[in-house]
C-alpha cells in the first residue's frame, strides 16, 4: 500500500443507545477510487461525517491526510472536496455568486477553466439561482464547485441518490477525470452497484455499522461465488463448505453462496460428498452484495490483504 490518505482506528459512534458505527478500521491509499457500499442506515454517512469532523466519535479516531478528523486544519480542508447527499447549497445565491464565494476560499487552487467547462457542459447559466434549479442541476453545480477546487481527495456521500442516469454518468465521468491526475483519491458511497463496479479500485462494505469487507473490487467479485451441486443422496449432517454465507436446497440441487473459498477447498469438500459434480456459477455484483449483506447464521469478515 502506498501513502495512506484516510485512516480510522476503531472508529465508533453511538446515537444514544443506537450503535451507528462499530469499531471501523479503514485504510484508504492514495490514488484509489474507494467505493463504500452499504444498505440504507448501514453507517456510511456516519463514517464520512466522522472522517470530515462533522461528528465526534464516541470512541476511536480517524485521520484525513495525516490530520486528526476532529481538528482538521484549514489547509487540509482546502485539499478535500466534499459533495454530500442532497447537495445543500444556499438557495438564494445565483450560480455566479456561489462561484465567487467558493473561489474566495481557494485562491491558489481554483480552476476557473474547469468550472467554465463544466457549466457549459451542463448548460447552466451563472444567473440562475440555486432555488430555481432541479435536484439534478444542483448536483451538477455541487460537483463543479467541488472539482474546480482541484481537491487531492474528493469525498462524496451518496451524491447521486435519487438522481437520473444522466447525472449519475456525469458524476462517474467527473471521478474518472479526477483520478486520471496523479495522486488524487476519491472516496464515494453509493447504492448503485453498477456505478461502483465501473469506477472503484477498492470497495468496503459496511453492514449495520460493521465493516464486513475491505478489498479490491476484483477480489470482491471473484471471491463471492455460487456453487451448485446435483445431489445423488442426502448430504451428511453438518456438511458445510468453508466460507458459506447461505445454503439453499431443492429436490435435487443444493446451492451454496461462498466467500473466499478456493477451488482446492471445494474439491476436497465434495470429494466425499454424494454429489454428481459441482460447478461454480458467476454472480453479478448486485447479487453478490445482496447475499453478502443479507442476515444469515454464518457471517464472515472479509479481509484479503495483510494490513501493513
Amino acid at each position, binding site marked *: 500500500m502506498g501513502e495512506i490518505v484516510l485512516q480510522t482506528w476503531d472508529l465508533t459512534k453511538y446515537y444514544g443507545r443506537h450503535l451507528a458505527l462499530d469499531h471501523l478500521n479503514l485504510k484508504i491509499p492514495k490514488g484509489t477510487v474507494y467505493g463504500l457500499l452499504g444498505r440504507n442506515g448501514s453507517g456510511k454517512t456516519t463514517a464520512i461525517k466522522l472522517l470530515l469532523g462533522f*461528528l465526534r466519535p464516541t470512541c476511536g479516531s480517524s485521520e484525513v491526510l495525516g490530520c486528526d478528523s476532529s481538528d482538521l486544519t484549514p489547509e487540509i480542508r482546502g485539499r478535500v472536496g466534499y459533495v454530500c447527499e442532497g447537495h*445543500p447549497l444556499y*438557495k438564494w445565491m445565483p450560480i455566479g455568486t456561489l462561484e465567487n464565494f467558493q473561489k*474566495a476560499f481557494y485562491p491558489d487552487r481554483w480552476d476557473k477553466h474547469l468550472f467554465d467547462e463544466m457549466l457549459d457542459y451542463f448548460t447552466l447559466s451563472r444567473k440562475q439561482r440555486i432555488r430555481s434549479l432541479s435536484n439534478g442541476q444542483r448536483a451538477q453545480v455541487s460537483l463543479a464547485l467541488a472539482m474546480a477546487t482541484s481537491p487531492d481527495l474528493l469525498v462524496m456521500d451518496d451524491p447521486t441518490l435519487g438522481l437520473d442516469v444522466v447525472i449519475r454518468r456525469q458524476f462517474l465521468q467527473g471521478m474518472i477525470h479526477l483520478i486520471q491526475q496523479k495522486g488524487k483519491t476519491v472516496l464515494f458511497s453509493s447504492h448503485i452497484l453498477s456505478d461502483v463496479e465501473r469506477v472503484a479500485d477498492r470497495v468496503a462494505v459496511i453492514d449495520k455499522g460493521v465493516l464486513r469487507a475491505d478489498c479490491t473490487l476484483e477480489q470482491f467479485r471473484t471471491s463471492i461465488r455460487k456453487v451448485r451441486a446435483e445431489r445423488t443422496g442426502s448430504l451428511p449432517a453438518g456438511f458445510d463448505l468453508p466460507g458459506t454465507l447461505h445454503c439453499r436446497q431443492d429436490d435435487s440441487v443444493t446451492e451454496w453462496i461462498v466467500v473466499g473459498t478456493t477451488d482446492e477447498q471445494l474439491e476436497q469438500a465434495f470429494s466425499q460428498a454424494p454429489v454428481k459434480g459441482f460447478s461454480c456459477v458467476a454472480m453479478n455484483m448486485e447479487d453478490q452484495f445482496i447475499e453478502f449483506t443479507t442476515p444469515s447464521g454464518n457471517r464472515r469478515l472479509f479481509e484479503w490483504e495483510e494490513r501493513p
Partner: protein
Amino acid sequence: MKFLALVKKEFRECLPWMCLAFIIFTGFGALLLRGKVLYEEGRRKEIWREEQVVPWCTSPISDIGPLLLLTALGLGLVMAIRQFYVPAFDKTWAFTLHRPIRLITAVHAKLFVAILGLTLSVGLPWTGMFLYAAIPGRFMDPVLPKVFWEGWLMVGLGFILYLGTAVSSLCQARWYTTKVCGLAFAAGIIFLAMAESPFPAPLVLTAIGLVVLGIQVYALMQSKEF
C-alpha cells in the same frame, strides 16, 4: 478575503430583515418624533399665551424608547434564527463549515454581521433621531445625553437576545429541557436591565450577558455535531 466572503454572504442573508427593521424603526420613529414636534409647537403657543403648562415628564425623545427596544430585540431574534437555526434546517451548515477556514472564523463573521446589522438598522437611525431632537430650540426641555446612551443600551440588548437565540438554536438538547436556557437567560438580562435600576446596573448586566452568552456560543459551536 475568506472572512470578507463569509461576511458578504451572512450580510446578504440578513439584509431583508435589516431593511425591514430599518423601515419600521425609522418610519414609526419619524412619525412619533414628528408628533412630538407638533405637540411642542402647540406648547410654545400656550406658553406665549401664559397658560398653565404641563411640563414634560420625560424627555420627548424617550418615547422612541419602546419602539427602539422592540425593533432591536426583533432584529436580534430574527438574525440569530437566520444565522444559526436555518442552516441546520436546510442543511447548509455542511457546505459552510467545509470551507478551508477555522470554525471560529465562521462564528466571527456571523457575529460581525449581527453587530453591523443592529448598528445600521437601529443604532444609526437612533443617533440621527437623537441629533435631530437635540438641535437647540427643537424642544424646550433639554434632551439629556444619558438618553442617547440608553438608546444604545437597548441596541445592546437586541444583541443579547441575538446571542441568547443563537445559544438556544445551537443547543442540541430538547426544547423542554436545556435548549430554552439561552433564550431564558437573555430574557432575564433584558428584563432586569430595563427595570428601574441605578445607572451602572443595566450596563453591568448587559456586559455580563454578553460575556456569558458569547462564551456559550463559541463553546457550542466547537462541540456541536453537524
